[in-house]
């Protein structure tokens, strides 16, 4: 990106800092993602970058709301897990987060007992 560090253009809106997602890395992940991938236009990673930003923002925000409900100022992994489970469009992440040792189906009471 020619204007790295100044105004990346990806993070429009000014609510985040000058950091943006690395396009080359995104492109690498895209290529790895499935067999027989078509060529990728130069502009596609830019679209991805913004989409990723929105995803991270939503996921972080929801995780943070969970942490707040649990009266913590630190985001823990289980907050992210809970946020994923509670959000329909994050269904594709359910398997990913359940790979961890945190069990999925916890009642609030059980969850309290787990926390250390």
């Amino acid at each position, binding site marked *: 990106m020619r204007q790295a560090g100044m105004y990346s253009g990806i993070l*429009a809106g000014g609510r985040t800092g000058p950091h943006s*997602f690395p396009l080359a890395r995104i492109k690498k992940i*895209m290529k790895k*993602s499935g067999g027989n991938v*078509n060529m990728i236009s130069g502009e596609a990673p830019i*679209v991805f970058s*913004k989409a990723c930003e929105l*995803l991270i923002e939503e996921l972080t925000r929801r995780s943070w709301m969970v942490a707040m409900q649990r009266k913590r100022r630190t985001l823990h992994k289980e907050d992210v897990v809970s946020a994923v489970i509670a959000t329909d469009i994050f269904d594709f992440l359910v398997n990913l987060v359940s790979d961890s040792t945190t069990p999925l189906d916890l009642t609030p009471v059980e969850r309290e007992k787990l926390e250390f």
Partner: protein
Amino acid sequence: MEPMDIVGKSKEDASLPKATMTKIIKEMLPPDVRVARDAQDLLIECCVEFINLISSESNEVCGREEKRTIAPEHVLKALEVLGFGEYIEEVYAAYEQHKIETMQDSLKGGKWSNGAEMTEEEALAEQQRMFAEARARMNGGAAPPKQPDPDQTIES
């Protein structure tokens, strides 16, 4: 310490750089909120998985349209199909913004008369004026700076 550019499970060869991701995540939260290491890692993994998901779908959209190259339009369609329709507007806006900026880049590059205010003659005149001022300050002492410095288009 983990290698700089590999994060998360070993099944993934390419991931997103942790330092950048950490900063992005933190910037989305109030300043006094901390993020546990494992939470950060998981967020990054989710992002990678998201890219995988959208990529696969984009790839299919592209194929259905019998194109060979995945274009932004295919990605937008994929987002919609997968339930991320809410993102489309902002994503598209960012894309448009980028197009505008790269256009400006190519207009500014090279010729130094394309800056906002000055024509080539004006810039030259300005330069001469600055040199004259510098010389006056030097008051005939040490040799005034003679570098022509043709790079007058400072991007603001």
